[in-house]
């Protein structure tokens, strides 16, 4: 009589986990790297690792709904004749027509305008629809210069010189052929249907000394009216902020690695750049060292999801934040009611990131006219406005609890960290202690 073998349960490797194995198999089958949209999906130190202390005997809270907590933000007060005045500290980050459908861009403009904030063009120029539906529009000045022209510079409300983005600091734009429709191709002066690979460096300037002259040129073209932002992907935030200030920027935008992209190599998204949380304090330190904190404004982006994230970014010294991925989700991206269609694409609601393929069932990251029709820009704009309002209300809720009559009065002293790593990164005490790693005080 044979004895049945006794086996252990199948053991999966921590090193070769299921995703890793599938990626090796995919790479072996195709011979080319994986490309996707979105930002870093790996777990990184984040705003979730921070808590607000709230009011106590030594701190008075503000009455909710009765005592005013200001949320207005002025961007571009350093040099621009016409700085931007926002009603909320939450702006919409740059996303191109091309990466997004026309209705999606219109919805972003409608939603942002409804709550008194700005939206931003992307690597593809400015459309009339976008300008028409955005009361405050930031015009990106990118290495590719697709669609760049002086008329759009002048009808913009601000100019954002893009050095890089958080998903791929050091990488250029990418838009695959499925999304290079006739209109997108014409706007970018490209052949229809090609895989577009934008330059990663600006064509006519190199380094901070040149950047200063480039900013001077843009100010001259626009008669010194427009605020000029400089956007960088988070990698060396202290020096990048200092050099942007030195170059004459009105506003510095720093985008952490959780910030989304329309299309980039997975290996780039997950392994280049630093988390959003890690970028804030060095950037603020640079501004403070130069005596420019609150004079040159700081916008933080990359994985901002709720009012707590907004409040924490502001408490660490930012003047405003920008959202991209969260705005797309508000429009309808990754909605569970599309689950059957996500399954047909080999994914599931909540994980869909093949934005580069142009087959988005929500009609957002596509140039397919039939899919694009699925997004009603009026409904989408309303949803985004709702979401932005909630972010603002949540930020105010936290600020009032900390006794602040304006969201910009939030400060690092209001925060503690749940982990040693976050305490060191955010330069706030580990919860329950007075210890800030690297700064003594056990």
């Amino acid at each position, binding site marked *: 009589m044979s004895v049945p073998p006794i086996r252990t349960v199948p053991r999966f490797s921590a090193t070769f986990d299921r995703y890793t194995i599938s990626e090796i198999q995919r790479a072996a089958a195709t011979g080319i790297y994986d490309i996707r949209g979105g930002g870093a999906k790996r777990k990184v130190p984040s705003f979730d690792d921070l808590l607000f202390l709230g009011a106590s005997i030594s701190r008075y809270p503000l009455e909710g709904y009765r005592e005013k907590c200001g949320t207005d933000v002025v961007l571009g007060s350093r040099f621009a004749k016409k700085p931007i005045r926002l009603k909320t500290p939450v702006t919409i980050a740059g996303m191109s027509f091309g990466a997004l459908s026309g209705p999606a861009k219109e919805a972003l403009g409608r939603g942002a305008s409804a709550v008194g904030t700005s939206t931003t063009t992307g690597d593809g120029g400015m459309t009339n629809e976008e300008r028409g539906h955005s009361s405050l529009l930031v015009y990106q000045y990118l290495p590719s210069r697709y669609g760049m*022209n002086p008329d759009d*510079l002048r009808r913009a409300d601000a100019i954002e010189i893009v050095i890089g983005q958080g998903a791929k600091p050091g990488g250029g734009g990418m838009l695959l052929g499925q999304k290079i429709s006739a209109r997108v191709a014409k706007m970018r*002066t*490209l052949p229809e249907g090609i895989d577009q690979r934008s330059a990663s460096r600006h*064509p*006519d300037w190199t380094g901070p000394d040149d950047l200063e002259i480039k900013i001077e*040129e843009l100010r*001259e073209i626009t008669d010194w009216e427009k605020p000029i932002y400089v956007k960088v992907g988070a990698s060396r935030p202290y020096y990048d902020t200092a050099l942007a200030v030195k170059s004459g920027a009105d506003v510095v935008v720093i985008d952490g690695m959780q910030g989304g992209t329309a299309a980039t190599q997975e290996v780039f998204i997950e392994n280049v750049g630093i988390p959003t949380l890690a970028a804030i304090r060095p950037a603020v330190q640079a501004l403070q060292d130069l005596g420019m904190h609150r004079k040159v404004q700081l916008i933080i982006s990359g994985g901002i999801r709720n009012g707590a994230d907004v409040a924490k970014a502001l408490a660490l010294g930012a003047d405003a934040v920008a959202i991209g991925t969260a705005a797309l989700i508000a429009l309808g991206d990754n909605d569970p009611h599309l689950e059957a269609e996500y399954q047909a694409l080999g994914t599931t609601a909540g994980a869909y990131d093949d934005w580069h393929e142009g087959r988005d069932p929500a009609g957002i990251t596509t140039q397919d006219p039939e899919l694009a029709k699925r997004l009603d820009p009026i409904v989408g704009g309303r949803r985004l406005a709702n979401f932005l309002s909630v972010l603002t209300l949540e930020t105010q809720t936290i600020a009032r609890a900390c006794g602040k009559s304006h969201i910009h009065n939030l400060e690092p002293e209001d925060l503690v960290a749940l982990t040693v790593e976050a305490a060191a990164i955010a330069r706030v005490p580990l919860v329950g202690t007075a210890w800030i790693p690297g700064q003594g005080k056990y």
Partner: protein
Amino acid sequence: MPTHDLNVTAVRAVNDALHKLPPDTNETLWQIDNPEGRHAIGVGIDAPVDVEINGHVGYYCGGMNKQASIRIHGNAGTGVAENMMSGLVHVMGDASQSAGATGCGGLLVIDGDAAARCGISMKGIDILVKGSIGAMSAFMAQAGSLVVLGNAGDALGDSIYEASIFVRGHVKSLGADCIEKPMTSEDRDRLADVLRRGGIDGEAKVEDFRMYGSARQLYHFHVDNIESY
């Protein structure tokens, strides 16, 4: 004729005056003296005026020009006529790097040599260089014609899209996906048109040029092109 001495009047004031010109202005001839390498002179003009600049200019002279004819009686710094939309920028001397970068229209004429990256990312501008051009010229050039009477440096037309490059002299090397192409009658007409607009159709013959453009092999990602990535 408005005349501005930049040792007396700031560049800002001159640009401001040029920007305020109405479309039907009769102040069509402007003179700018003593530029002395200052930057951003005559940027963002949108009027049919003639601007004579007597001396050397710094970065981005004539940037984003529309309609104006700008003549620089000297050398030009980085990015002369960058992103020009229409009109003419004529450099009587040499031009530094990135001349005509991302230009969308109009004509840039350089009597002398142009440094590296001449015509980088050009999007419809025509560029005529009577001397030679430096390395990486017409990098990612998308549309328009780059015409060179002299020689071209390394990696000419690297990653070029649908722009055309015409060189009368020697090409040191071609960049990725840039090849010599036979000229069609349309190509010869375009070349002749640039030479005519540059005022040298009597001096340079179309048949003395060779044409370079995209092999269109890198327009789509493919593992077989890995050596080029």
